[in-house]
């Protein structure tokens, strides 16, 4: 455990760690583009210059190991000058695209310029022209002129995704990132290259041009895409959710996440959601508020006994399961609870990096809850019960992310056999409107709108807080079941409700002011 002094601060670092790791560990700021903790060291941007006592020349921090008693500083005038020139070399051929560049606002070059630069450009010659708006694949767009050739994305495809699509072609300042003929950047983790790109060279087709980043507010949560449970950051504002990025967690997902998980946020946006409760009687759908609907439902669910069956999917939180199962036994007085698991066969699948075959975030949690209540109803029993007609009321907590519920139609068709069905569903699905029996559809909250705990494949319980509220009318599973059980429940509308997009009512809100100041601090672009 060598000790070293960085900017006068004495710190101890694990043996063999580099200066830049030491500085990050001790929360010190150092400029860098090519270095990324999840990738190998390239040492090409030459920006992370530090001055080491007894060494006349400035060194790069990313490839210099810390030795006992090393005295390092990156605040001296010498280092500042080196960093300024390092930045200038990056900028001389960098286009002034900031107004139309999605990275503007979270761009490494902008940040470093405000820190070291603020000079008049001396470059009077023509900038190098390269390809713009290059279509790399189904998810990513490349702008070679903006690229600073830090080679992060190339290293990602060779080291992490191991797909080798990207390469750096030509040499000198003619070098360009690119893909080769007939092999586009098309793998399950491609958008990570956009995250690690320090400039706006790689942009995600999904997020491209939809928002300026300073309009976005972010909050951490856990991805519900599969049983891995990657830690993610969601970016949203009053117009809706816009993107999802991974958050580092070395025990779960490292620095990365898969593209499937990134696209999950879409179903949570208002246009894909049930906003009102719906009831189908004599062939026509009538809309009503969830509260009113729940009262009606309570009439035939409360105390229904074993005539009523509860179907649960592994997409709700432990807290909900606990309360729901309790109410189901005490108030409804039924023992019939069934686990709808659409991924039993593929549950064990694993692609070696992150993606797992079980597409439910909380299968483990549900199984645990069922065991705790000694509930071991099999799916066959439900089918039999429906056939024989001894089950005539089914309450279903439907799956949130329909992308993965392949057997959705089949299950709907089966449950349609019951006389009364209460279907609690987050995202719209055509199959539900097609149901012919006496069916109620309850609008449910998505995982972004509630606090809770998911238990991932390894039995690791991950707690997450509510991100925001998109559909204030929606209920979570506990609230719904309380109402079905006839309990009174006052649902306070959330303060910060997302309004429908297209006509933003009033954007003057604190966090946006903050973001705006963020822009003003940077002066005119």
């Amino acid at each position, binding site marked *: 455990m060598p000790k070293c002094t960085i900017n006068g601060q004495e710190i101890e670092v694990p043996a063999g760690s580099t200066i830049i790791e030491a500085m990050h560990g001790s929360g010190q700021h150092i400029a860098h583009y090519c270095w990324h903790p999840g990738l190998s060291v390239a040492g090409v941007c030459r920006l992370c210059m530090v001055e080491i006592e007894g060494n006349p020349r400035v060194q790069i921090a990313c490839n210099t190991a810390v030795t006992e008693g090393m005295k390092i500083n990156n605040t001296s005038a010498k280092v500042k000058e080196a960093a300024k020139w390092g930045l200038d070399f990056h900028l001389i051929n960098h*286009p002034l695209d*900031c*107004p*139309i560049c999605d990275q*503007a606002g979270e761009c490494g070059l902008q940040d470093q310029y405000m820190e070291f630069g603020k000079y008049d450009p001396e470059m009077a010659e023509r900038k190098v022209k390269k390809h*713009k708006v290059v279509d790399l694949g189904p998810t990513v767009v490349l702008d070679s002129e903006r690229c600073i050739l830090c080679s992060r994305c190339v290293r990602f495809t060779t080291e992490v995704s191991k797909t080798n699509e990207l390469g750096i072609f030509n040499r000198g300042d003619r070098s360009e990132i690119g893909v080769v003929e007939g092999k586009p950047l098309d793998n399950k983790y491609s958008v990570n290259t956009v995250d690690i790109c320090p400039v706006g060279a790689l942009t995600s087709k999904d997020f491209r*041009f939809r928002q300026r980043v300073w309009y976005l507010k972010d909050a951490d949560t856990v991805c519900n895409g599969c049983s891995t449970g990657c830690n993610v950051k969601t970016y949203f504002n009053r117009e809706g959710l816009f993107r999802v990025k991974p958050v580092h967690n070395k025990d779960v997902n490292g620095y990365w996440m898969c593209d499937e998980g990134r696209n999950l946020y879409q179903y949570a946006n208002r246009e894909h959601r049930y906003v009102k409760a719906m009831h189908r009687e004599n062939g026509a759908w009538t809309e009503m508020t969830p509260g009113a609907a729940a009262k009606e439902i309570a009439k035939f669910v409360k105390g229904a006994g074993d005539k009523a069956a509860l179907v649960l999917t592994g997409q709700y939180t432990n807290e909900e399961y606990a309360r729901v199962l309790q109410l189901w036994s005490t108030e409804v007085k039924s023992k019939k609870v069934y686990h709808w698991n659409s991924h039993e066969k593929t549950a064990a699948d694993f692609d070696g990096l992150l993606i797992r075959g079980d597409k439910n975030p909380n299968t483990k949690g549900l199984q645990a809850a069922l065991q705790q209540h000694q509930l071991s109803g099999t799916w066959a029993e439900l089918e039999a019960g429906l056939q024989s007609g001894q089950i005539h009321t089914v309450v279903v907590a439907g799956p949130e992310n329909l992308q993965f519920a392949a057997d959705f139609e089949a299950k709907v068709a089966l449950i349609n056999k019951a006389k009364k069905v209460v279907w609690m569903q987050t995202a719209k699905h055509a199959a539900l409107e097609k149901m012919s029996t006496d069916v109620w559809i309850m609008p449910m909250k998505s995982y972004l709108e509630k606090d809770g705990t998911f238990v991932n494949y390894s039995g690791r319980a991950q707690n997450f807080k509510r991100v925001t509220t998109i559909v204030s009318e929606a209920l979570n599973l506990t609230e719904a079941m309380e109402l079905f059980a006839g309990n009174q429940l006052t649902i306070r509308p959330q303060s910060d409700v997302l309004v429908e997009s297209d006509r933003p009512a009033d*954007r003057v809100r604190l966090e946006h002011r903050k973001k705006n100041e963020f*822009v003003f601090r940077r002066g*005119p672009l």
Partner: protein
Amino acid sequence: MSVVQRTGESRNWYLPGIAGGLVITMKHLLKNLLSRKQMITLNYPEEKFEYSPRFKGNHVLTVKRDGSLRCTACMLCATNCPAECITIVASEHEDPSVEKYPIKYEIDILRCVFCGFCEEACPVDAVRMGPEWQTPGLPGADFHYGIDKLAYRPQLKGGIATFVDDEERHKAGI
């Protein structure tokens, strides 16, 4: 100006005050009757007041040589707008040299405070404050001015082309 509160008897003597007032009235009446030139009243709408060219009136979206919008949908105007009255929806342009352009640029003209921050903020001189200030409309009229109104309203005669030359900018690698 300070108001003198008279007290006591003198409060009842109001006729001199009235007389003084009438004198002023008569003076102005006579002046306007004798010399029309000095009369400051305008017969709106026949006569209209000459505003300074710097007057900050309704917004104008400028256009390029080919008549397409200059705006790149960078949203800096919307960001800086203190009244939050600008709404922009950007989209991908098929021409890679343009890349990004607004499919919707909307100003809620009733909300606008005509501060001119938007034209200050614009990096490509795409939005300016024009000369017109009248924004009449019947009850229920839509005061969310869209692209067609901001850039191509008849008064502009096919849009205002600005001095910035895109070809030059591109050659210079900007």
